[in-house]
C-alpha cells in the first residue's frame, strides 16, 4: 500500500512535469492547451492522493472543464499563428529568464526541503473530524468561518461577467 502511493505519485508528477515543459516548448497553441489539460488532470490526481476530494473534483470540473474550453475556444477563434518571432527585442531576455528561473527553483526547493513545518495549536484550526467526509468538512468551514469571502466571490463573478460583456460587445452605432 505504501509502495502504491509512491508509485502513483512518481508517475503522476513525471506526467505533470513533462506536460508543463511541453506546454512551454510547443509551437502550436492548441498543443499547449492540451498539455495544460494534462497538467491539470495530473494535479487533480495529486489532490486525490492527499485526500482533498472536493478540490480534486472542482479542479476537473472548473479548470479542466470550463476554463480549458474557454482557452481552446479562443485559440480556435483567433486562428493559430504558428510563426512566433524568435528574435527578441531584448537580446539578453531569454538566457536571463532561464537563469533566474533556475535560481528561483533552487531557492524554492531549498526552502521546501530544509524548513520543517511544526504542527502546533491544532485545536484552533479547521479540522476534518473523524468519520466526517472531506466535502462535509470543507463545506462546514467554508460556510461558517469563510461565509463573507464566499459571498464576495459571487460579486467578483458578476463583475467579471459584466466586464466581459462590455469588452466583447461590438459597437453597433
Amino acid at each position: 500500500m505504501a509502495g502504491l502511493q509512491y508509485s502513483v505519485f512518481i508517475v503522476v508528477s513525471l506526467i505533470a512535469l513533462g506536460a508543463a515543459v511541453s506546454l512551454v516548448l510547443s509551437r502550436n497553441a492548441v498543443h499547449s492547451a492540451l498539455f495544460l489539460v494534462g497538467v491539470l488532470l495530473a494535479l487533480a490526481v495529486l489532490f486525490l492522493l492527499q485526500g482533498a476530494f472536493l478540490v480534486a473534483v472542482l479542479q476537473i470540473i472548473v479548470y479542466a472543464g470550463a476554463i480549458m474550453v474557454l482557452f481552446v475556444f479562443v485559440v480556435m477563434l483567433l486562428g493559430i499563428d504558428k510563426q512566433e518571432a524568435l528574435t527578441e527585442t531584448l537580446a539578453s531576455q531569454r538566457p536571463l529568464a532561464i537563469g533566474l528561473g533556475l535560481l528561483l527553483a533552487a531557492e524554492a526547493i531549498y526552502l521546501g526541503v530544509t524548513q520543517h513545518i511544526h504542527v502546533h495549536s491544532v485545536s484552533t484550526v479547521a479540522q476534518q473530524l473523524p468519520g466526517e467526509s472531506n466535502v462535509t468538512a470543507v463545506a462546514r468551514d467554508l460556510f461558517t468561518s469563510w461565509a463573507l469571502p464566499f459571498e464576495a466571490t459571487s460579486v467578483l463573478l458578476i463583475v467579471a461577467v459584466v466586464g466581459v460583456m462590455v469588452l466583447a460587445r461590438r459597437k453597433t452605432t
Partner: protein
Amino acid sequence: MKVPGALYLILSALLFTIGAIGVLVRRNVLVMFMCIELMLNAVNLSFVTFGRMLHDLTGQIAVFFVLVVAAAEVVVGLAIIVSIFRRRASADADQISLLKW
C-alpha cells in the same frame, strides 16, 4: 506511509518555475496566459500540501478562492486578448507596445 510533503513542495516549485520561465520566454499572448494558469495551479498544489501537513482544511478553502479568482481572471483576460486581436490581428506580446516609452 504517505508520500512526504516535501516531495509535493518540490514538484510545486518546479511547476511554478516552468510557468514563470514560460511567461518570460514565450511571445504568444495565449501561451503566456496558459503559463500563468500553470503557476496558479502550482501554488494550489502547495496550498493543499501545507494543509495536509498541518492537518488544517484552510488550505483547501484557499484553493477554492484561487479557483474562483482564476476563473474570473481567465474570462476577463481572454476577452481582452480577443479585443486586442480584433484591433491589430496579432497575438504577439511584442506588438502590443503602444504604451511603451
